[in-house]
Each structure stands twice: as C-alpha cells, then as structure tokens.
C-alpha cells in the first residue's frame, strides 16, 4: 500500500535541485554532492555544468 520510491543509493538532493538538474539536462547521478551527507546542491549542479562546458570547449579545441 505505502509506496516507497526511495531506493538504496539514491542521489540526495532536494526536489528543486532535482528539477533544476533535469532543466539543465544534467544526469544528477554523475554530480558529486558537497552538501551534508553528500547532498547535491544547486551550486554543485552549476559547477558541474561549467566543467562540462569547459570540457566541451577543450575537446573542440583539440579537434581543430
């Protein structure tokens, strides 16, 4: 009856951060959390996004 959607090894992040990850098209499972108990924060997502962009830039440079 009760519906535990919680599973072992879930990513800890607040509902708003989870939504932001989807909006930024980030797979939140790949983001390391800096918050308490390893919680992924909004800042972690933004940092991850920046890192991704830099990675893409340097990949593009290398390709040139």
């Amino acid at each position, binding site marked *: *009856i*009760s*519906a*535990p*959607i*919680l*599973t*072992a090894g*879930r990513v*800890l*992040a*607040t*509902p708003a951060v*989870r*939504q932001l990850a*989807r*909006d930024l*098209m980030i797979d939140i499972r790949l983001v390391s959390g800096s*918050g*308490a*108990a*390893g*919680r992924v924060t909004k800042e972690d997502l933004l940092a991850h996004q920046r890192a991704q962009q830099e990675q893409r830039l340097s990949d593009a440079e290398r390709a040139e």
Partner: protein
Amino acid sequence: MVVGDIAQNVQTVIIGTGPAGYVAAIRAAQLGLEVVLIERGEVGGICLHAGCISSKALIQAANAIGTLAQATEMGVELERHAFNMQKHQAWKASIQQKLTRGISALLAANGVTVVKGTALFMSEDRIAVETEQGMEYYRFEAGIIATGSRPQPLPNLPFDGLHILSSTEALRLTELPKRLLIIGGDCIGLELGTAFAKLGTEVIIACSESDILQGFDHSLVQIVKKNMRRAGITLLTQAEVCGHTIEEGTVCVTLQQGGVEKKIAADKVLVTVGRRPNTEGLDLDRAGLSTDEHGFLTTDHQGRTANRNLFAIGDVTHGPLLAHRASREGMIAAEAIAGRNSAKDMACMPTVLFTDPEIATVGLTEAEAHAQGIAVTVGQFPFAASGRALTLGRGEGFCRIIAEQDSRVVLGVHIVGAEASSLVGEAALAIEMGATLEDISLTLHPHPTLTETLMEAAADAQGIAIHVAKRR
C-alpha cells in the same frame, strides 16, 4: 478551438475530472494549453463525491462523538446524544457542493472547456464524446486518460445497492445501519467501519488475510486495533465468503474461517476488497493501447503511455490508489505536454489512514529497508510522553523514524496518533530534502505540540532523546 469537418481540433483532451484530471486540466491551462475536459458524472470524481472527502466527513462526525467521551473525562458533562444521518448527509452535501463549485470556478477561470459526456477513443488522436445533445468528436494533439476506478465486487457477494453495498453506497446511507458486516481489511473498510461503530452501529469486519492493513508496520496496526476493539468492532481474520442469503431485509453471510463455517447476519454488508480501473469501454485498442490483466495502464516517468501523445494518470495506472498521487501525476503530465522536464521523481509518497488514531506513514519501513539491504537506525517516541497529546486526551500512539545508519539520512517516518495527518508533512519534506536525524532534532519544535514527537524520535535514534529513558 477550430471546428473541423467532423472533429474539433484541440491541443489537449483530458478524460475524467477526479483529482487527476481536473488538476491536469488546470495545470495545462496555466501553461497556455487549450484544454477540453470530459466528465460523464460530476466534476470532482470519486475523491470528492464518494471517496476522500465524503468518507472524511463521516469520520469527523464520528470523531466528534469520540470527543464527547474524552470531554467527559476533561470535565464536560453531557446528556444523551444521537446521530441524525439525514442531517449529516445534508452537511456533507453542502461541503461537496462548495468544493465542486470551487473546482468548476477554477476550471472556468483558467479557461478550461468542460464537456459533459462519456468519452471513448476513435483512433490514436481522436475521441468521441456521447453527450446529452448527441456525439461530439475531438482530434487532439495530446490526450490524458484520468478515468479513475470503481469498487471491485466479490463474485459471490455482488453489489445490489440495497443490502450489499460498495463504499459509494455506504457513504450515501440516510439511516445508520444497526448491524454492518464489512468484507475487506483495507483502509477504506477500516475507516468506514470505525466511523460507523463510533456512531452507534454494531460493526463486524471480516478479511481474508491474517491481519488487517497488510503492508503496514505491525506495531502501527496494533494501536488501531486496540481502539477498534474499544469501539466494539469484531474482527474476523482469514475469513472467506462462501455465500449469502437475503431474507426480510437481513443479509446472512456464510464465512469460512479455519475450516469452520460461520453465519453472520447484518442489515447491511459493505464490500471493500479493492478497486478496479475504469479502462473498459474506452476502446483503448483504437488508441493503440492495451491494459494489463487487471485493467491498469502502464506509463513512463512522465505518465506517457505506449502511444506517445497519450498520457494516463491516477487510479487507472499502476501504483497506490491515492488522490495526491493522482493530482501530482496530473501536474506532471500537463507539464510534460507543455514541453517541460517534469518527472515522477518523488523520493516518497505519504499515506494517511483516517483510522482511530490516524496513521500516517511515509518512506521506508524497517522491513523494507532491510529488504533493500540498507542498515538502519531507528528512533521512537510515544505520544504518552507528549504533554500535548495528554492534554488532548490522546496519549495513545507513537512516532517512529528510520534513518540510514551511516549517513543518518531519514528514510521513513511512521506515525500513529492524534493529528498524524498533519504531522506527516514535516516527515515528507524531511525525506525529500535528504534531511538527516540531526537536521530534525536540531530544528526547534514548539512546545507543547505534537511536532515534538518527531524531534524526540530523531533524537532517540541518535541515543540523545531527552524524554526517553536510555535503552541502549
């Protein structure tokens, strides 16, 4: 809306105005979609007219009578009381009317077109609606199936609306039954059974399982069973219905219990053995859809069915039959149709039972955590140690919290006690936020309130509760 040759073209068609459908309609309209919402019955669905709201009205009337007993203890002296079921129905109707009007007004304010009629599919993107004025046809860009569910009958105890009732009919009684036999030990049967018993009906509950409320933690159920006994309810477990006779307004049901036959006579029998999704008659095959063997539709994380433009939400889909699940799925489907990235990614889904006392549970039970191989820490606090609970005359029950052992992240909260339905909001937020035991125990909870039970339970799980003697 553009009127086409045969079918009117419309962006979004939604079938059903229960908490799934009307919420989806409002959300879709908020997001700028043009919405046609179809309903064959009354706006508001089962939830409003024969479910959550109507049952809670009856339960509250019964609780008011329960309060009288507590009031006596508190110094309030009372003379006789009686229950006028007709007056009750009038009161309930006034609430339902208020809420129905409210929803209709919201739908109108958001520009949703409501069509009265029964919908069925013509093709993958077309439906027909049988209205009083004849058939109407709509071609849609996206459709949502939110047709809900109805009571499941027992083959050898079919509903007759007079003696053998579904919950819908039981909630419409205009006279209190003298003797009520309830078949089924799920929450609907227990909620109604407890209410009728408090109102003065002699109630017998028979279920086929080894105990009522399968799936709930045993210790929560124990507290409720104690109050059921106090209310004079007889509970028969592992009892199977073999047959029945109806004579002179009395139903006599034969039950088989551990090889022994038992005959129970009652003026009404309420059968609550589950619900069945309303998916037949929709001609789903023409929309390219098929259901599972029980009639439920399978959907993805946004509510999308096998037909990419068709969504299904609420009681017609797999999952607990709960109004808040229905509404949330409605929002998510509407947002998905509007192109948003919403998803059913809830960490937990609270369940509340309006038994006596209330049960509210969210997240994992200890057993579920063990089954997933998670090592847990458990804390508990009894309502008997809460000053607020005692001054409410409601010292029974407890609040239990379950956290992952190492991280102390809260995994589940299970409350049985007064106002559990209001206390569970904090528990649900804690789980969604990824709160730890410390987050809860360090949060200042006001005194004297029942919210302290969760704080103390969280402290207890850390071995630092103030109002619990050391047990480690």
